[in-house]
């Protein structure tokens, strides 16, 4: 079956202001998540499903509701 991709991004980013006298080096980009539930409001019928085993591992039966999370920031010294 053809994989359907969401018509929105699940990660948004913005660049916080960095002042001349801010003590830490700028973090650059700040990220925030906009998971799929925000765009659904009411789940439509007949969405694509994971296999039962896969669903148990991922935490949802529904492919359009799955949202993998990873730390978006890289480590740095200081």
């Amino acid at each position, binding site marked *: 079956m053809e994989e359907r991709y969401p018509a929105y991004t699940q990660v948004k980013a913005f660049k916080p202001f960095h002042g001349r006298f801010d003590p830490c080096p700028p973090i650059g980009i700040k990220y925030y998540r906009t*998971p*799929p539930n925000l765009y*659904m409001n*009411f789940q439509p019928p007949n969405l694509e499903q994971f296999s039962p085993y896969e669903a148990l591992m991922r935490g949802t039966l529904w492919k359009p509701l799955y949202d993998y*999370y*990873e730390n978006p920031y890289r480590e740095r010294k200081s």
Partner: protein
Amino acid sequence: MWVYEKKLQYPVKVSQCNPTLARYLIEQYGGADGELAAALRYLNQRYTIPDKVIGLLTDIGTEEFAHLEMIATMIYKLTKDATPQQLRDAGLGDHYVNHDSALYYQNASGVPFTAAYIQAKGDPIADLYEDIAAEEKARATYQWLIDISDDPDINDSLRFLREREIVHSLRFREAVEILKEERDRQKIF
């Protein structure tokens, strides 16, 4: 009445001896947006919400206890063999003095759990909106925990819990939609 299944909802594996991580995880155990607060909030709201969404609150409230049990298992495994010295180095010296390595309902800063974390306003929309907010706050907490933890096995379990918050949030949104609709209201034209 509940029926107990003697297994975790999702496996909890710990790869490193890291009591500091246990200290952070406590936030989801006895914190304001933790699993205990969630379970108690939903199960308590059931009594004064329209019949159509009582079942949803029972289901999700019950699942939150399964999550609480997973968090408890993580904290227990991360601290059970730690020496007092190790706990002190992890910033858990004050916890050790008060509780040994027993679990306690408190947040990551050691503030004990309070019923003031939860609300039961009696207004179905107000209560469900609080539930949606609670799920999003718990999702965010799981994100920050994943960011701060470098234990891949713990993170795997935390990702599962985060995904459940997303599903629960959608279910509460659907409950709001159900209550907004007028499907079975008597309409006389």
